[in-house]
């Protein structure tokens, strides 16, 4: 006699197998979404780094004077007593702020560069020739207290007058 329908044990096995596959799929989906979000944040950070490096080099090349403040910020004095300040702020997220002020102290420009939450930024002034190094560090994920270098940019101050002197008279 042919048996019709399915037994309880078959149903239980089928439901268990389906649940297991469903859970695995959800897990993979969750991981994929997490990775996608991390990748996006990394890309943003990477682009922000490149933008910061470009601004930093351009500003230092034009700087006539450089000064490190007690709070770790860097102040560059350009032509016409214009000042450019780089400082790091750790609030909701970490950001590096670039502020341009005119000789009168009026804010002319402000740029914000988003960093990784665990990022820290330090400036170092060296001489012969006068140059500044910007170093961005971040905490290694999963290893509290251990830092790794994310970016290290070094630029020579007052660079353009040297270049124009080598090139000769420029129009």
């Amino acid at each position, binding site marked *: 006699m042919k048996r019709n329908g399915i037994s309880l044990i078959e149903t239980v096995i089928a439901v268990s197998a389906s649940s297991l596959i469903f859970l*695995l799929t959800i897990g993979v989906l969750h991981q994929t979404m997490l990775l996608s979000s991390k990748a996006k944040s990394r890309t943003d950070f990477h682009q922000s780094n490149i933008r910061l490096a470009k601004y930093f080099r351009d500003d230092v090349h034009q700087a006539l004077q450089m000064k490190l403040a007690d709070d770790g910020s860097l102040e560059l004095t350009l032509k016409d007593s214009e000042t450019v300040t780089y400082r790091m702020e750790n609030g909701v997220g970490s950001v590096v702020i670039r502020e341009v002020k005119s000789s009168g102290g009026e804010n002319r420009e402000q740029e914000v560069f988003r960093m990784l939450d665990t990022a820290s930024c330090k400036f170092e002034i060296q001489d012969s020739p006068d140059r500044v190094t910007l170093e961005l560090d971040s905490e290694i994920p999963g290893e509290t207290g251990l830092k790794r*270098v994310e970016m290290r940019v070094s630029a020579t101050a007052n660079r353009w007058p040297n270049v124009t002197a080598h090139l000769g008279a420029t129009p």
Partner: protein
Amino acid sequence: MLKQRRAYGSANIEVLVAASLLIAVIGLLSSMVPRLGNVWKASRNNQLATHELANQLELLTAIPELQRSQALENLRVSPDLTDALHNAVLRHQLLDDASGRRIVLSIDWERTVDAKPISMVAWLPSQKTGGELRQESDTRGTP
């Protein structure tokens, strides 16, 4: 006339094939996670290496001629980067030909896959040398 019976539900073999396919896809996706991590690490290291070359060239082009030859002899990768760029080697070429007087700096380090070293060029102020000048050097990153 014989009436054909239609099968309802799914056979064991169908369930088995579907489950195998799903597991294969999950396995494939899972294996991509460490690969993605490696790609990110490689991209970060490439950026660090590019900045290092730019930093070195920035200094080399800013110092006077005499100091430059000394600096080229003592070329070293910044100590801060030796953790990220294992056994990094900096090589330089000082060229003076029709394209101008220039320094070609390249950096290579231990990587999991074979990849070409990263190079960067900086032009120097022209100097009458009376012919083609070519110097090459190879210096290890670790002191």
